[in-house]
């Protein structure tokens, strides 16, 4: 088998039907970019979960004066020091709890101003309209229910809020979007594969004279098929490299510069370059192997050996 012979045939073959080669390259690039993108999105969600689940806490909000007037949970009035003391000692006895911090109304007011200082509501608020709260860090964030059952409905407790629950909603949304992206990717992949099969079919047909002669002269099946498979692999690889390019550029423009989300959304910890770089070999390998396999099976159908 002569490598040079095969390589020159690849170049000729790809150029012969440039439009179809282009279509294969683009469809592979898009589907693999989506694939990489959704992998990165999963990574991102996992990173955020890891970061935030550490920081979230269960909050027990205590009744203040305005709650006492409006909220049915606080029908018995604003929280008393006794009740607060009771809550605190109960909390200290619970083994599922890692730590407890108390936030006073002044502190709550200060935090509110920091986060929402610009909103029109902030200027009209006063500290005693804020709620006191106990911020609880659980050893196992899943054990929210324990706190809820223990403290919900107690005198002086306005509500028990699980911040993790809020985050869960966000993450579910993100993961849902990811699934949608994967569905689109699957469709694109099918399109790419069908394009490859069709390209190989047309290519095999237009070269039937040469392949016929090769067959009669005793070339092995592998030798006859190799140019087609390698054409598909090379076209796929170019698509794969494009997909990698998309991902790298995407991260650059979305996160670092351009939209610069990492500066604007400081709450979110973004995945690093290493997350992107580790995906690249997988994408390149897929872009090489998948078209090669597709071409192989297309040849079995459309090329007589």
């Amino acid at each position, binding site marked *: *088998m*002569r490598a040079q*012979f095969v390589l020159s045939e690849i170049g000729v073959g790809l150029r012969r039907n440039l439009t179809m080669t282009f279509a294969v390259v683009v469809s592979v690039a898009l589907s693999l970019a989506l694939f990489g993108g959704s992998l990165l999105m999963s990574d991102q969600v996992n990173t955020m979960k890891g970061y935030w689940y550490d920081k979230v806490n269960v909050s027990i909000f205590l009744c203040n004066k305005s709650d006492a007037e409006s909220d049915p949970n606080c029908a018995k009035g604003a929280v008393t020091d006794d009740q607060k003391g009771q809550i605190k000692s109960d909390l200290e006895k619970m083994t599922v709890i890692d730590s407890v911090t108390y936030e006073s109304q002044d502190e709550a007011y200060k935090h509110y101003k920091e986060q929402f200082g610009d909103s029109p509501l902030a200027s009209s608020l006063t500290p005693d309209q804020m709620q006191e709260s106990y911020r609880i860090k659980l050893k196992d964030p899943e054990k929210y229910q324990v706190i809820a059952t223990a403290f919900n409905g107690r005198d002086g407790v306005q509500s028990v809020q699980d911040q993790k629950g809020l985050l869960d909603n966000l993450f579910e949304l993100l993961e849902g979007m990811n699934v949608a992206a994967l569905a689109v990717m699957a469709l694109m992949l099918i399109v790419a594969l069908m394009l490859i099969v069709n390209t190989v079919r047309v290519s095999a047909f237009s070269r039937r*004279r*040469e392949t*016929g*002669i*090769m*067959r*009669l*002269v*005793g*070339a*092995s*099946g592998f*030798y006859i098929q190799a140019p087609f498979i390698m054409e598909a692999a090379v076209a796929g690889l170019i698509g794969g490299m494009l997909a990698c390019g998309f991902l790298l550029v995407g991260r650059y423009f979305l996160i670092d510069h351009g939209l610069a989300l990492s500066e604007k959304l400081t709450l979110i910890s973004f995945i690093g370059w290493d997350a992107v770089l580790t995906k690249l070999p997988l994408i390149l390998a897929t872009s090489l192997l998948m078209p090669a396999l597709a071409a192989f099976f297309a040849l079995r159908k459309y090329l007589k*050996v």
Partner: protein
Amino acid sequence: MIRFDNVSKAYPKQNRPALRDVSLEVERGEFVFLVGSSGSGKSTFLRLVLREERASQGQVHVLGKDLARVSNWKVPQIRRQLGTVFQDFRLLPNKTVAENVAFAQEVIGKSRGEIRKSVPQVLDLVGLGGKEDRMPGELSGGEQQRVAIARAFVNRPKLLICDEPTGNLDPQTSVGIMKLLDRINRTGTTVVMATHDQNIVDQMRKRVIELEQGRLVRDQARGVYGYQH
């Protein structure tokens, strides 16, 4: 070289079988003409020898191997030991004469050095020395067929199969081609040639095998073309 044992071949969806119970043997070094009207089964016979088709019944032995037992991926190896020449020459139009002949050696993995030596040699043999860089489109029919013969012969096969090689050629050129094939036969290569060409068969007086409607009707050493029923 070739042995047919009660071989029959029927193509699907056709009423009449292409070959019916054909048994014959071709020995090494023979020159055999295969004659018969169109549809008599000549091409089918050759296709069976080349393993382009498989026999419906009976055994086909080529170069000592039972073709039915040979697995698909071993077939190319057998074909490398055969040379084939066709009526329509079957040259690659985008390659030069030398490249066309070299093709047969490239696909079996011969080194460039070997090819550079053997191609001019075989082109001289067929009388095309000096025409290495011409394209098939620039050559006459006779010259193109010589290129095809050079390609078939360059690997020194034991058996040369020719399917109406003079079919597209004028009588005078045909004679030239036949002389070439005769010379090749005398080097020890077995030649089996299907043909319509009455004059050639009559002139050369080699073994004649006649097929009619798929049956072997005549097998005559030093025979003539004419139907002698």
